[in-house]
């Protein structure tokens, strides 16, 4: 029983991490038809910026308490700024050239880890986290690491915030409409490019937050962390239905759990394969994914 509890919460923690990356990816694809292969890089930027700040380089930030919260905030802000820069400088000039756009995001997705390696080395760096979050708590006989709960809570907060944003604000309304018919949004007198930048900023912020607190889960940061998670984030987006936030949340949980249980009860590494099998099986039954729509 205790093993099942531990695996479940670890799977949910991993699923939360996938959701933080996949939510932005899904919105970006749904609204803009952009396959952003640089999204993992945004997560890495968030992770490294948080690590850098929490390591004492940013005044006021540190590895404990309020200092760590400030470091996470800083990492998220840097990732958000990077996302906006990416949209304005790389994505926007290539809106009419989707193939070049994909290649450009692949390029950025490769260049950022290389840049991080060049500056801080290719080896993993220990991630300084608060003492209070490094412990465990007992649940039904299992000793569950606290950082799992942090990830799950962060994903729940992001999911709720995104739902409120999409459902209660005019910008959210524009995004939902844009996912359906971008040209018609423009024909109503709305500058849809602003929505593009906003969605990129939101997606970048969520991914960077994933990177910032993902360091707690992994215990370290390394340049390839974001890129290696990206493939599973794409699986989540496809499973959930392109552009669907609720779908992404459900698929994240499914992928995280399947991966953890398959890895534990079969051979290590088989969990990744199980996820792909799950994706194939789902698409055979529901070609548009779990929901096939937004939010």
């Amino acid at each position, binding site marked *: 029983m205790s093993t099942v509890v531990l695996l479940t919460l670890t799977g949910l923690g991993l699923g939360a991490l996938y959701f933080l990356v996949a939510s932005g990816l899904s919105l970006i694809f749904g609204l803009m038809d952009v396959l952003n292969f640089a999204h993992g890089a945004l997560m890495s930027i968030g992770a490294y910026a948080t690590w850098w700040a929490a390591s004492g380089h940013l005044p006021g930030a540190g590895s404990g308490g309020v200092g760590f919260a400030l470091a996470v905030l800083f990492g998220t802000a840097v990732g958000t700024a990077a996302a906006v820069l990416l949209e304005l400088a790389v994505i926007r000039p290539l809106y009419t050239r989707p193939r070049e756009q994909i290649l450009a995001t692949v390029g950025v997705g490769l260049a950022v880890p290389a840049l991080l390696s060049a500056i801080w080395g290719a080896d993993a760096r220990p991630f300084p986290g608060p003492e209070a979050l490094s412990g465990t708590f007992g649940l039904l006989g299992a000793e569950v690491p606290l950082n799992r709960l942090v990830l799950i809570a962060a994903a729940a907060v992001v999911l709720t915030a995104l739902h409120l944003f999409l459902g209660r604000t005019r910008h959210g309304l524009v995004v939902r409409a844009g996912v*359906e*018919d971008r040209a*018609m949004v423009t024909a*109503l007198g709305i500058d849809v490019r602003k929505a593009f930048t906003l969605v990129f900023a939101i997606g970048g912020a969520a991914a960077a937050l994933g990177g910032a607190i993902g360091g707690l889960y992994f215990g370290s940061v390394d340049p390839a962390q974001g890129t290696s998670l990206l493939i599973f984030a794409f699986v989540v987006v496809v499973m959930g239905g392109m552009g669907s936030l609720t779908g992404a949340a459900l698929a994240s949980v499914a992928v995280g759990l399947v991966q953890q249980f398959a890895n534990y009860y079969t051979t290590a590494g088989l969990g990744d394969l199980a996820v792909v099998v799950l994706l194939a099986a789902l698409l055979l039954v529901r070609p548009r994914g779990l929901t096939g729509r937004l939010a």
Partner: protein
Amino acid sequence: MPAPLLTVRDLKVVIGGRHILHGVDLEVAASGTTALLGRNGAGKTTTVRGILGLVPRTGSVLLDGEETVRLATHALVRRGIGYAPEDRGVFAALTVAENLRLAERPGAREPAYDLVYELFPELRQRARQAAGTLSGGQQQMVAIARTLLNGNRLIIADEPTKGLAPKVVTEVAQVLERAAEAVTVLLVEQNLAVVRRLAQHCAVLADGRTAHRGPTAELLADADEARRLLGVGRAGHGGTVGTPARTGTPARTAAHPAAPTAEADV
């Protein structure tokens, strides 16, 4: 005669290497309704999309004397254009109220919900219903309502009666007639009874070019000319515009798949 509200000169559209419009000239009078006519495939919808910048185009599009061909679509629309597209452009997953809210222009004048709900009381009752679950006629109401919210100077309605039941065609025609009392309307329409009722002026396209311009009544009174340009018989008594006469024989009967019958009275 007052200057036209919209003047289109030598509008050309090339999509995927294929020339769709070869140089359309069009004037929309400062008031009333101007109809844009032509057989299926003549380039009517592309002309509208070209005017709005929804497809790449060259030429000149003057809105009240201002050249707009280099403007982005949203910037042009915000100068006072309401657009009800051929496919209605309703956001299926959004509610009726949300569809209308999207047409609001923050910072501009107060949206005219009173007028919209007076013309379409049904939309108020269905405000929380997903637009995708509405009937075709109700979706058309949403599309037209969005053009009326903003005090636009020009409404462009692309085949607003397409696929609607005769009773709804009459309702839509009534609304457009009333709208045209205050706003200029550019109407793309296949149903000649609607055209006859609403449009004072018309332009006819053929093969991506302007083939005729003038008073609507004059064109529809000339059966031979109407048959030549539009492929219809009995043009003065209703009917719909025909398909291109690809076999060399002009289409004599209604070819619009879901249009009212040739004797439809609006």
